[in-house]
């Protein structure tokens, strides 16, 4: 073997070995370490007769400014401690992911303070009257700050939408019984699969009819069918799309996803959908995880105010099962299948690509493993409690505090969506990609409604009842 060949062999080995670097170089794994870490610490405190609830403080309901002031003056040390814990945990993770601590720390401090204010506004007893739902307020404030006021770009180091939502989803697993996932998962997968395949085919077909390139049509199709921007870039890479195709898909996904955050919850409310049904519908209609959680959480909040039948948890659980279990986990298979089709059926490009089945695993959204593990851990360690003891001991001292941490992670995420969405920086999508995607989005919404509110309505209404 020549020296050059030896060198190439060494490089191949090194490239294979770097796969394991995923464990500390991908945010999915850090979301698992962080989320499971919180769950395990919470359980250890609980098992020793204590709780982490002192740390997981959230603003209390208030009706006067004086009440709010009293809350903060009594609890300020808890907020400081919580901030320090979040900051330390996120700093370790984001430094490993390549961010500079000197940029992340001030950015997160800003994010935390604004999040506390938004959370407090949402706890005002008149908030519901003015539709001041924290997810929507966070998004609106973020959009205003990034597009009207303008923030330095380096602050993005602390506005990590995906990292926060993945951490929140792992924590969500701890509040969702594993038995519920097993019971409701298959229906979610069935419903989501029908929607995903149909939506993809509609966008792809309309795209081709409008004269778009196959690779761009597939990139748009995956964005609408699977998991939004993440799916679009995964498929763009799998099929070898032009580098301008992914930004086009990103633009149309963001435009639709943000519009639907503000529209879907209120349309669902107008249609008098049960919280579980509304959550499932949002799970089939929203493309991006983070945007969908904002809409589902908003709908859940409407349920907790009594405006909508059902509970807040039902909306969030139904959405999670539909989106995370039903759609997200299949992205690797979509990528492999489309890579296979692209290389064997479509017109050749100047680049040779070979479909690689290992992509099914490498592209798998690993945070889902953390979500399932968190659910399994809490389900197992609390299995021996009677319902009465569970509600009296486990909920306030273990599940409740973890849920509060999840709520914080979600607010960081919702605010970050707004803070990082700068409309002037989005690529021009053009009318044809927008029309193709919109056709799929329309099918998504209509068929999703039919399946959620008619075919499987009883299933979603009974979820976690």
């Amino acid at each position, binding site marked *: 073997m020549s020296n050059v060949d030896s060198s190439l062999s060494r490089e191949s080995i090194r*490239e294979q070995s770097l796969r394991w670097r995923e464990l500390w170089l991908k945010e999915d794994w850090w979301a698992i370490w962080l989320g499971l870490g919180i769950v395990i610490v919470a359980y250890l405190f609980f098992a020793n007769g204590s709780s982490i609830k002192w740390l997981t403080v959230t603003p209390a309901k208030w009706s006067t400014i004086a009440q709010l002031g009293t809350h903060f003056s009594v609890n300020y040390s808890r907020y400081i401690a919580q901030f320090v814990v979040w900051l330390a945990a996120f700093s370790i993770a984001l430094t490993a992911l390549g961010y500079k601590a000197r940029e992340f720390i001030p950015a997160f401090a800003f994010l935390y303070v604004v999040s506390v204010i938004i959370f407090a506004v949402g706890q005002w007893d008149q908030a519901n009257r003015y539709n001041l739902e924290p997810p929507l307020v966070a998004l609106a404030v973020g959009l205003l700050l990034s597009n009207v006021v303008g923030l330095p770009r380096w602050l993005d180091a602390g506005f990590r939408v995906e990292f926060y939502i993945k951490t929140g989803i792992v924590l969500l697993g701890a509040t969702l019984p594993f038995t519920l996932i097993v019971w409701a998962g298959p229906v979610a997968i069935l419903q989501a699969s029908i929607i995903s395949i149909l939506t993809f085919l509609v966008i792809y077909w309309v795209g081709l009819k409008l004269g778009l390139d196959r690779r761009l049509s597939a990139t748009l199709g995956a964005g609408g069918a699977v998991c939004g921007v*993440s799916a679009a*870039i995964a498929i763009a890479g*799998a099929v*070898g799309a032009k580098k301008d195709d992914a930004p086009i898909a990103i633009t149309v996904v963001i435009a639709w996803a943000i519009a639907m955050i503000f529209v879907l919850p209120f349309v669902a409310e107008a249609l008098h959908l049960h919280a579980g049904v509304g959550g499932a519908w949002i799970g089939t209609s929203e493309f991006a995880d983070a945007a969908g959680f904002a809409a589902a959480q908003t709908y859940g909040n409407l349920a907790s105010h009594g405006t909508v039948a059902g509970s807040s948890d039902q909306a969030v659980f139904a959405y999670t099962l539909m989106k995370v279990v039903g759609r997200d986990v299949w992205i690797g298979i979509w990528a492999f299948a489309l890579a296979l089709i692209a290389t064997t059926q479509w017109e050749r490009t100047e680049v*040779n690509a070979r479909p690689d089945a290992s992509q099914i695993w490498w592209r798998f959204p690993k945070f889902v493993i953390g979500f399932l593990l968190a659910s399994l851990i809490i389900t197992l360690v609390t299995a021996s409690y009677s319902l009465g003891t569970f509600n009296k001991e486990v909920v306030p001292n273990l599940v409740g505090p973890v849920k509060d941490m999840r709520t914080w992670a979600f607010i960081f995420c919702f605010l970050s969506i707004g803070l990082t969405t700068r409309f002037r920086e989005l690529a021009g999508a053009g009318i044809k990609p927008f029309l193709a995607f919109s056709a799929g989005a329309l099918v998504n919404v209509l068929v999703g409604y039919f399946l959620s509110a008619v075919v499987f309505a009883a299933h979603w209404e009974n979820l976690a009842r």
Partner: protein
Amino acid sequence: MRHQQEVLGANCGHCTHFRNDPAYLEEAFGGLNALSSARGSVRGSDGICVVHGRYLQTGASCPKFEQRHSPHLLPL
């Protein structure tokens, strides 16, 4: 020779024209970090070929391959 190169790793992942650094991608794809991220598992280690203007997997290849000289590992 071409087959041998493919087997031994003469692909985009080792090419000097390939860019898959997450920070570079988030800069190149406006809005990527608003509802997603270049640091997630679903992206794999895909990157941009600056010669062909395509977004590719590391395993792709073409006749314009040029071995990257720096021995550093690829960022994911």
